[in-house]
């Protein structure tokens, strides 16, 4: 019975009970929501421990962290690590490598995903459509270790199928895996192979929601196939494209640690080093915790600015943003 009254009180929801004004109301609210708050406790602890505590610890970017002295005990050094990083001769190279990879992903992988979604959408033979979808989603579930190992086997010197094929066509003896000129093409190739198919899901879902009568009306008005794609299909996925663009812009400096780390070797370092791998090398391997944290923090802050900036731009041009 008490529960019933509680339920009625909750659904009746006088604003006062939700906005407790004194201690008694706080107690009442806690009592009413005790089970829900209890259920949420492990999750809250998780976020505090593994998401927010590191944010507190990130202050070592402004200190000279000495494990023995602890975070609070280590001396403040202000912006020193940031200055070291931005004046480091490695900095322009890291920035360049990171931005080139991001641009390749944005201008090659992203449009290819849209094109592929459009092609799949034009496929009327349902069984074929489903078969192709089933096949192209598979690589998404393979680990980067597997993808990089596959690449290693396909481009193995002397007997790899793609090594043989490409060298025959070009009349060369290139070792693709070690040649810095081939690093970026291979990264893009892996990225496209692994993620293009998967990326089509969200567009296909948006396309499935398009009112078919629009197409019929367009056909009656004499619109050809391209006109229908241009005037009906593309506008209907415009908001999806914009949301994904905003999200991707925020990710520009995140190159994906595993892929780059696994693909880099002593011979292609000049083009392979990016911020993510740099943080790992100087932080985890060399133990310069404070400096590596500063690099990571600079990267994260630029990411936040980019995501809000693109969102603001999208809204300015009368598109729906994500916030």
């Amino acid at each position, binding site marked *: 019975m008490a*529960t*019933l009254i509680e*339920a009625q009180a*909750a659904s009746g929801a006088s604003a006062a009970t*939700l906005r407790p004004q004194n201690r008694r109301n706080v107690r009442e609210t806690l009592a009413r929501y005790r*089970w*829900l*708050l209890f*259920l*949420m406790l*492990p999750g*809250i602890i*998780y*976020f505090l421990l*593994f*998401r927010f505590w*590191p*944010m507190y*610890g*990130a202050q*070592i970017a402004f200190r000279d962290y000495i494990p023995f002295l602890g*975070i609070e005990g280590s001396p403040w050094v202000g912006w020193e690590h940031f200055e070291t990083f931005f004046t480091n001769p490695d900095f322009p190279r890291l920035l360049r490598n990171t931005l080139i990879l991001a641009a390749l992903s944005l201008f090659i992988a992203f449009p290819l995903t849209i094109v592929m979604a459009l*092609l*799949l959408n034009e*496929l*009327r*033979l349902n069984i*074929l459509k489903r078969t192709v979808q*089933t*096949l*192209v989603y*598979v690589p998404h*579930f*393979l*680990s980067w*270790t*597997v993808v990089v*190992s*596959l690449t290693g*086997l396909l481009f193995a010197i*002397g*007997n790899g*199928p793609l*090594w043989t*094929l490409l060298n025959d066509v070009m009349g060369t003896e290139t070792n693709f895996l070690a040649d810095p000129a081939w690093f970026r093409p291979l990264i893009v190739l892996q990225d496209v192979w692994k993620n293009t*198919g998967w990326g089509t899901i*969200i567009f296909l879902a948006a396309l499935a929601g398009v009112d078919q009568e629009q*197409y019929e009306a367009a056909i009656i008005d004499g619109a050809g*196939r391209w006109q229908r794609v241009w005037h009906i299909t593309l506008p209907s996925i415009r908001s999806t494209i914009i949301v994904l663009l905003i999200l991707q812009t*925020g990710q520009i400096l995140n190159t994906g*640690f595993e892929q780059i*780390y696994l693909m880099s070797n002593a011979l292609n370092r000049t083009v392979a080093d990016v911020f993510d791998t740099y*943080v*790992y090398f100087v*932080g985890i391997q060399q133990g310069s*915790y404070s400096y590596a*944290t500063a690099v*990571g*923090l600079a990267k994260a802050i630029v990411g*936040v600015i980019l995501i809000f900036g693109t969102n603001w731009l999208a809204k300015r041009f009368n598109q729906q943003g994500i916030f």
Partner: protein
Amino acid sequence: MARVKYRFNTPAGKVFDAVNVTVLIAVGTIAILPFLYVLAGSFATEYELTTRPFFLWPNEFTTDAYASILSSSVFVRAFITTIAVTGVGTAIQLVLTALMAYPLSKIDLPGRRTIMSLVVFTMVFSAGLIPTFLVVKQLGLLDTYWALILPAAINPFSLIIIKNFFQELPKELEESAKIDGANELRILRSVVMPLSKPVLATFALFYAVGIWNDYMSPLIYLSDTSKWTLQMFLRQVTAASSLTGEDLGNELPPPAQGIKFAVVMVATIPVLLAYPFLQKHFAKGMLIGSVKG
């Protein structure tokens, strides 16, 4: 169905459809061709692997590479470890996510908006690799399997999608349970969970694939090589220029090329076995509840 007819009946339309079908069949083939090659290669002899650049059917079958892997104590340990970590980790991650998603799906929960904003904030901004590493170190989790499970226990995206799904469940069911005297724990267990099975199954599989495929966490958190997971073993085998029997904990050295093919297969097959179950739900699971709210 009339629509289908006039889509196909112009000559240009027919040409486009033919090209489209061809292109997409090619794309679908390319998606799995490398895999089929490695499958064939894993059963081929060393001689065939070094002399034939491409084949989908070996001339001569051998299971030497698999025999070498299965008798490797290093592999067997890594494989069992990875299965155990994936199983336990998936259960923990899913339970934590669902338990947090449920209260957040209640619109009148006090503090709900604040918590949601903080969750979204962690999606946009993360402190980065080193501060997280130091937390894991401080908690004494370095070189333990917990380091592969706990730091990524709740994926904010999954949390929000599951929350939105719970939110869209019909309220009447919960209210009638409440009138019957059930508390929130009971409602979650007997009403919400059974209704959410497909969604929870989807995210369980996503979590499982995430742990199984994870390379970065063991790389960073496990320095003890005897604790290495399957992905670490895979990397060690395929990146090595030559492997001795000792690397695998075997007496005999493995087939130099074949072992690389076989180990890729062994690391992939469990994911492929899970794929049909994944595929049944993921498109729906990903999009269900992705409505803003």
